[in-house]
């Protein structure tokens, strides 16, 4: 299953792209996605430890399942206002 991850702020600068595509196994969870992100993009390791993962614009936990076609966002610590 392919998962698209949209990137913001420092994570986007680190990768030089505003999204990336991950190749993942069957019935993946957010926890699986985090591991795949570090494996396939080790340059994200430092910021990833501080990031939340949004699935379909909602904050997730590691157990949250990923469905085909869902929108995943990598959310560094926010600083709006």
């Amino acid at each position, binding site marked *: 299953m392919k998962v698209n991850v*949209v990137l*913001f*702020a*420092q994570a*986007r*600068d*680190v990768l030089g792209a505003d999204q990336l595509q991950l190749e993942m196994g069957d019935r993946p969870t957010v926890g699986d996605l985090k591991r795949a992100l570090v494996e396939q993009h080790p340059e994200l390791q*430092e*910021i990833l*430890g*501080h990031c939340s993962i*949004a699935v379909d*614009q*909602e*904050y997730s936990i590691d157990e949250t399942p990923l469905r085909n076609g869902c929108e995943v*966002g990598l*959310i*560094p*610590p*926010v*600083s*709006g*206002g």
Partner: protein
Amino acid sequence: MIEIIESKIDSAALLAAVNDPDAGANLLFVGTTRRLTGQQETSQLNYDCYREMAAKKLAEIRAQAMERWPLKAVHIVHRVGDVPVGAASLAVAVSSPHRAEAFQAAQWIIDTLKEIVPIWKQEVFSDGKKVWVHPGASPSSSQ
């Protein structure tokens, strides 16, 4: 009303919009780009935004505030993109029958916004250095 815009925020219009004959208290908070952070001089801020999620979270914050306090109206506007020093990046306007709830609600809205709404600030310093502000994460700068 919730808005994420790339142009100047019209704060006065926002305050006028929450006016209600049954409200005695009208509160407008405007967050502006500060020139100095410690000794460093900021020339502008750039705001990045996960737009669909930010709009959803702002709407949730607004709905929760209206449920929690007897507010007459709540308007939240966040500007994204480039925001020069002195310009407004955030405006929150609330109205309520009495002032205590207007103050409490406005503070809660801003605190919660700064915790959960996916918007990110990049400081552009007067020496050209740019730094994303990611509270809790170690800063990394880029040209």
